[in-house]
Protein backbone atom coordinates (compact mmCIF):
# COMPACT_ATOMS: atom_id res chain seq x y z
CA UNK A 1 0.00 0.00 0.00
CA UNK A 2 0.91 3.64 -0.12
CA UNK A 3 3.27 5.07 2.38
CA UNK A 4 2.46 8.14 4.51
CA UNK A 5 5.00 10.32 2.68
CA UNK A 6 3.24 9.72 -0.59
CA UNK A 7 -0.20 10.52 0.87
CA UNK A 8 1.05 13.73 2.51
CA UNK A 9 2.82 14.96 -0.59
CA UNK A 10 -0.10 14.18 -2.87
CA UNK A 11 -2.58 15.95 -0.58
CA UNK A 12 -0.34 19.02 -0.43
CA UNK A 13 0.20 19.00 -4.19
CA UNK A 14 -3.46 18.68 -5.12
CA UNK A 15 -4.64 21.16 -2.50
CA UNK A 16 -2.15 23.80 -3.59
CA UNK A 17 -3.07 23.22 -7.24
CA UNK A 18 -6.67 24.06 -6.33
CA UNK A 19 -5.52 27.08 -4.29
CA UNK A 20 -3.40 28.28 -7.22
CA UNK A 21 -6.49 28.44 -9.39
CA UNK A 22 -9.03 29.64 -6.85
CA UNK A 23 -7.29 32.01 -4.45
CA UNK A 24 -8.40 35.59 -5.06
CA UNK A 25 -5.00 37.26 -4.87
CA UNK A 26 -2.92 36.33 -7.92
CA UNK A 27 0.45 36.53 -6.13
CA UNK A 28 -0.61 33.97 -3.55
CA UNK A 29 -1.89 31.85 -6.40
CA UNK A 30 1.59 31.95 -7.95
CA UNK A 31 3.14 30.92 -4.64
CA UNK A 32 0.67 28.04 -4.37
CA UNK A 33 1.68 27.04 -7.90
CA UNK A 34 5.30 26.96 -6.70
CA UNK A 35 4.23 24.63 -3.88
CA UNK A 36 2.52 22.35 -6.41
CA UNK A 37 5.65 22.23 -8.55
CA UNK A 38 7.77 21.48 -5.49
CA UNK A 39 5.37 18.66 -4.63
CA UNK A 40 5.87 17.23 -8.12
CA UNK A 41 9.63 17.49 -7.57
CA UNK A 42 9.24 15.49 -4.34
CA UNK A 43 7.33 12.86 -6.31
CA UNK A 44 10.28 12.68 -8.67
CA UNK A 45 12.62 12.12 -5.72
CA UNK A 46 10.31 9.36 -4.45
CA UNK A 47 10.56 7.81 -7.92
CA UNK A 48 14.40 7.81 -7.79
CA UNK A 49 14.58 10.45 -10.52
CA UNK A 50 16.73 12.90 -8.60
CA UNK A 51 18.15 14.57 -11.69
CA UNK A 52 14.69 15.34 -13.06
CA UNK A 53 13.68 16.59 -9.61
CA UNK A 54 16.63 18.95 -9.54
CA UNK A 55 15.84 20.13 -13.05
CA UNK A 56 12.22 20.67 -12.06
CA UNK A 57 13.15 22.79 -9.04
CA UNK A 58 15.69 24.83 -11.01
CA UNK A 59 13.54 25.48 -14.04
CA UNK A 60 10.05 25.69 -12.60
CA UNK A 61 10.42 27.07 -9.11
CA UNK A 62 13.59 28.96 -9.89
CA UNK A 63 12.68 30.45 -13.24
CA UNK A 64 9.06 30.01 -14.27
CA UNK A 65 7.36 30.95 -11.03
CA UNK A 66 9.72 33.86 -10.45
CA UNK A 67 8.99 35.07 -13.99
CA UNK A 68 5.25 34.80 -13.36
CA UNK A 69 5.52 36.66 -10.06
CA UNK A 70 7.53 39.47 -11.66
CA UNK A 71 4.98 39.76 -14.45
CA UNK A 72 2.11 39.90 -11.97
CA UNK A 73 3.85 42.65 -10.06
CA UNK A 74 4.57 44.52 -13.30
CA UNK A 75 1.05 44.60 -14.70
CA UNK A 76 -1.03 44.19 -11.60
CA UNK A 77 -4.47 45.75 -11.41
CA UNK A 78 -7.21 45.48 -8.85
CA UNK A 79 -9.84 44.96 -11.52
CA UNK A 80 -8.53 41.47 -12.20
CA UNK A 81 -9.79 40.32 -8.88
CA UNK A 82 -13.33 41.21 -9.81
CA UNK A 83 -13.47 39.11 -12.96
CA UNK A 84 -16.52 37.00 -12.27
CA UNK A 85 -16.44 33.56 -13.75
CA UNK A 86 -20.17 33.09 -13.44
CA UNK A 87 -21.88 30.21 -11.69
CA UNK A 88 -22.85 28.32 -14.81
CA UNK A 89 -19.30 28.38 -16.19
CA UNK A 90 -17.97 27.12 -12.90
CA UNK A 91 -20.48 24.28 -12.75
CA UNK A 92 -19.70 23.25 -16.32
CA UNK A 93 -15.97 23.28 -15.56
CA UNK A 94 -16.51 21.09 -12.50
CA UNK A 95 -18.66 18.71 -14.54
CA UNK A 96 -15.96 18.42 -17.21
CA UNK A 97 -13.28 17.83 -14.58
CA UNK A 98 -15.34 15.14 -12.85
CA UNK A 99 -16.12 13.51 -16.20
CA UNK A 100 -12.39 13.35 -16.98
CA UNK A 101 -11.65 11.83 -13.59
CA UNK A 102 -14.45 9.30 -14.08
CA UNK A 103 -13.49 8.30 -17.61
CA UNK A 104 -9.76 7.98 -16.99
CA UNK A 105 -10.41 6.27 -13.66
CA UNK A 106 -12.61 3.70 -15.41
CA UNK A 107 -9.87 3.24 -18.00
CA UNK A 108 -7.32 2.65 -15.24
CA UNK A 109 -9.59 0.22 -13.42
CA UNK A 110 -10.04 -1.76 -16.63
CA UNK A 111 -6.33 -1.88 -17.37
CA UNK A 112 -3.81 -4.26 -15.90
CA UNK A 113 -1.28 -1.76 -14.57
CA UNK A 114 -2.44 -2.33 -10.98
CA UNK A 115 -0.86 -5.79 -11.17
CA UNK A 116 2.51 -4.55 -12.38
CA UNK A 117 5.46 -5.50 -10.25
CA UNK A 118 7.99 -2.73 -9.82
CA UNK A 119 11.51 -3.98 -10.35
CA UNK A 120 14.48 -2.99 -8.25
CA UNK A 121 16.62 -1.57 -11.05
CA UNK A 122 16.72 2.23 -11.24
CA UNK A 123 17.38 4.26 -14.40
CA UNK A 124 20.65 6.05 -13.84
CA UNK A 125 21.78 9.52 -14.79
CA UNK A 126 24.29 7.94 -17.17
CA UNK A 127 21.49 6.25 -19.10
CA UNK A 128 19.60 9.54 -19.36
CA UNK A 129 22.62 11.34 -20.71
CA UNK A 130 23.38 8.57 -23.16
CA UNK A 131 19.82 8.51 -24.52
CA UNK A 132 19.60 12.26 -24.72
CA UNK A 133 22.84 12.67 -26.61
CA UNK A 134 22.70 9.63 -28.91
CA UNK A 135 19.26 8.40 -29.92
CA UNK A 136 17.40 11.62 -29.10
CA UNK A 137 20.12 14.03 -30.22
CA UNK A 138 18.00 15.44 -33.11
CA UNK A 139 15.27 16.21 -30.59
CA UNK A 140 17.89 17.73 -28.32
CA UNK A 141 19.13 20.04 -31.08
CA UNK A 142 15.58 20.97 -32.09
CA UNK A 143 14.86 21.73 -28.45
CA UNK A 144 17.87 24.00 -28.22
CA UNK A 145 16.75 25.90 -31.32
CA UNK A 146 13.18 26.11 -29.99
CA UNK A 147 14.39 27.57 -26.71
CA UNK A 148 16.56 30.13 -28.46
CA UNK A 149 13.73 31.09 -30.81
CA UNK A 150 11.23 31.42 -27.99
CA UNK A 151 13.55 33.60 -25.95
CA UNK A 152 14.14 35.89 -28.92
CA UNK A 153 10.39 35.91 -29.64
CA UNK A 154 9.55 36.80 -26.07
CA UNK A 155 12.07 39.63 -26.08
CA UNK A 156 10.72 41.03 -29.35
CA UNK A 157 7.13 40.81 -28.12
CA UNK A 158 7.82 42.45 -24.80
CA UNK A 159 10.02 45.19 -26.23
CA UNK A 160 8.83 48.69 -25.41
CA UNK A 161 9.33 51.20 -28.20
CA UNK A 162 10.78 54.08 -26.23
CA UNK A 163 11.94 56.10 -29.23
CA UNK A 164 8.38 56.47 -30.44
CA UNK A 165 7.38 59.37 -28.23
CA UNK A 166 10.40 61.52 -28.99
CA UNK A 167 10.73 61.22 -32.75
CA UNK A 168 7.80 60.21 -34.85
CA UNK A 169 9.98 58.80 -37.61
CA UNK A 170 10.11 55.05 -37.42
CA UNK A 171 13.19 53.00 -37.94
CA UNK A 172 13.69 51.25 -41.23
CA UNK A 173 13.64 47.84 -39.70
CA UNK A 174 10.08 48.01 -38.43
CA UNK A 175 7.28 46.31 -40.28
CA UNK A 176 4.16 47.82 -41.73
CA UNK A 177 1.88 46.53 -38.97
CA UNK A 178 3.48 49.07 -36.72
CA UNK A 179 1.89 51.95 -38.59
CA UNK A 180 -1.58 50.53 -38.31
CA UNK A 181 -1.13 49.82 -34.65
CA UNK A 182 0.16 53.25 -33.77
CA UNK A 183 -3.23 54.82 -34.46
CA UNK A 184 -5.24 52.56 -32.19
CA UNK A 185 -3.29 50.57 -29.73
CA UNK A 186 0.15 51.91 -29.23
CA UNK A 187 -0.75 55.43 -28.25
CA UNK A 188 -2.97 54.12 -25.55
CA UNK A 189 -0.13 51.81 -24.68
CA UNK A 190 2.18 54.80 -24.42
CA UNK A 191 0.01 56.64 -22.00
CA UNK A 192 -0.54 53.48 -20.09
CA UNK A 193 3.21 53.12 -19.80
CA UNK A 194 3.32 56.56 -18.23
CA UNK A 195 0.56 55.69 -15.81
CA UNK A 196 2.32 52.58 -14.75
CA UNK A 197 5.54 54.44 -14.12
CA UNK A 198 3.70 56.99 -12.03
CA UNK A 199 2.00 54.33 -9.97
CA UNK A 200 5.31 52.56 -9.40
CA UNK A 201 6.89 55.77 -8.26
CA UNK A 202 3.92 56.41 -6.04
CA UNK A 203 4.35 53.07 -4.38
CA UNK A 204 7.99 53.71 -3.76
CA UNK A 205 7.30 56.94 -2.01
Amino acid sequence: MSDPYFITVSVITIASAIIALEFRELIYGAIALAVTLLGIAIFFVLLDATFVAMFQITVYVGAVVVLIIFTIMLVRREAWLRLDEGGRRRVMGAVIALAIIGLLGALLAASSIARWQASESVPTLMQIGEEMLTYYSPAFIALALTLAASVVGALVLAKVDRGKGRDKGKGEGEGEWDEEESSSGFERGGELEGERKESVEGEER
Partner: protein
Amino acid sequence: MAEILDYTIVSIILLAIGIYGLTVKRNFIRMLFAVEIIVNAANLNLVAFSRLMPSPNATGQTFALFSIAIAAAEVAVGLALMIVAYRIYRNIDIKGLKRLSG
Protein backbone atom coordinates in the same frame (compact mmCIF):
# COMPACT_ATOMS: atom_id res chain seq x y z
CA MET B 1 6.85 2.48 -1.89
CA ALA B 2 3.82 3.76 -3.71
CA GLU B 3 2.66 1.82 -6.72
CA ILE B 4 2.11 3.04 -10.22
CA LEU B 5 -1.65 3.22 -9.78
CA ASP B 6 -1.26 5.83 -7.02
CA TYR B 7 0.90 8.07 -9.19
CA THR B 8 -1.49 7.71 -12.09
CA ILE B 9 -4.43 8.68 -9.89
CA VAL B 10 -2.63 11.80 -8.62
CA SER B 11 -1.75 12.65 -12.20
CA ILE B 12 -5.37 12.26 -13.34
CA ILE B 13 -6.59 14.51 -10.53
CA LEU B 14 -4.04 17.18 -11.45
CA LEU B 15 -5.07 16.92 -15.10
CA ALA B 16 -8.73 17.39 -14.14
CA ILE B 17 -7.88 20.42 -12.00
CA GLY B 18 -5.92 21.92 -14.86
CA ILE B 19 -8.72 21.39 -17.36
CA TYR B 20 -11.19 22.89 -14.89
CA GLY B 21 -8.97 25.96 -14.67
CA LEU B 22 -8.65 26.24 -18.45
CA THR B 23 -12.40 26.09 -18.98
CA VAL B 24 -13.52 28.29 -16.10
CA LYS B 25 -10.92 31.02 -15.69
CA ARG B 26 -10.94 34.17 -17.76
CA ASN B 27 -7.70 35.55 -16.40
CA PHE B 28 -4.74 34.95 -18.73
CA ILE B 29 -2.28 34.26 -15.90
CA ARG B 30 -4.64 31.79 -14.26
CA MET B 31 -4.93 29.97 -17.56
CA LEU B 32 -1.14 29.78 -17.69
CA PHE B 33 -1.21 28.27 -14.19
CA ALA B 34 -3.69 25.68 -15.44
CA VAL B 35 -1.46 24.81 -18.41
CA GLU B 36 1.50 24.41 -16.06
CA ILE B 37 -0.48 22.06 -13.85
CA ILE B 38 -1.48 19.94 -16.86
CA VAL B 39 2.12 19.75 -18.13
CA ASN B 40 3.28 18.69 -14.69
CA ALA B 41 0.65 15.97 -14.50
CA ALA B 42 2.03 14.62 -17.78
CA ASN B 43 5.61 14.80 -16.49
CA LEU B 44 4.65 12.95 -13.34
CA ASN B 45 3.15 10.19 -15.46
CA LEU B 46 6.24 9.97 -17.65
CA VAL B 47 8.63 9.66 -14.72
CA ALA B 48 6.35 7.26 -12.83
CA PHE B 49 6.11 4.91 -15.80
CA SER B 50 9.84 5.22 -16.44
CA ARG B 51 10.61 3.96 -12.92
CA LEU B 52 7.76 1.57 -12.14
CA MET B 53 7.41 -0.31 -15.41
CA PRO B 54 8.27 -4.01 -15.21
CA SER B 55 11.53 -3.18 -17.03
CA PRO B 56 12.55 0.37 -16.07
CA ASN B 57 14.37 2.51 -18.59
CA ALA B 58 15.46 6.11 -18.80
CA THR B 59 13.36 7.16 -21.80
CA GLY B 60 10.55 8.52 -19.66
CA GLN B 61 12.94 10.70 -17.70
CA THR B 62 14.52 11.96 -20.91
CA PHE B 63 11.12 12.92 -22.23
CA ALA B 64 10.27 14.61 -18.93
CA LEU B 65 13.40 16.74 -19.25
CA PHE B 66 12.44 17.75 -22.80
CA SER B 67 8.92 18.53 -21.65
CA ILE B 68 10.10 20.73 -18.78
CA ALA B 69 12.28 22.74 -21.16
CA ILE B 70 9.43 23.18 -23.65
CA ALA B 71 7.08 24.29 -20.86
CA ALA B 72 9.58 26.92 -19.72
CA ALA B 73 9.77 28.33 -23.25
CA GLU B 74 5.98 28.31 -23.47
CA VAL B 75 5.65 30.30 -20.26
CA ALA B 76 8.13 32.91 -21.50
CA VAL B 77 6.27 33.40 -24.78
CA GLY B 78 2.87 33.30 -23.07
CA LEU B 79 3.81 36.00 -20.58
CA ALA B 80 5.27 38.17 -23.35
CA LEU B 81 2.03 37.82 -25.32
CA MET B 82 0.09 38.72 -22.22
CA ILE B 83 2.16 41.86 -21.68
CA VAL B 84 1.56 42.93 -25.29
CA ALA B 85 -2.18 42.29 -24.97
CA TYR B 86 -2.26 44.17 -21.70
CA ARG B 87 -0.46 47.10 -23.26
CA ILE B 88 -3.01 47.27 -26.07
CA TYR B 89 -6.26 46.44 -24.25
CA ARG B 90 -5.28 47.39 -20.67
CA ASN B 91 -6.85 44.18 -19.54
CA ILE B 92 -6.07 40.50 -19.43
CA ASP B 93 -9.66 39.33 -19.58
CA ILE B 94 -9.78 36.64 -22.23
CA LYS B 95 -13.11 37.94 -23.51
CA GLY B 96 -11.45 41.18 -24.59
CA LEU B 97 -8.94 39.24 -26.67
CA LYS B 98 -11.69 37.86 -28.88
CA ARG B 99 -11.28 40.99 -30.97
CA LEU B 100 -7.90 39.65 -32.05
CA SER B 101 -9.64 37.07 -34.20
CA GLY B 102 -10.94 39.84 -36.42
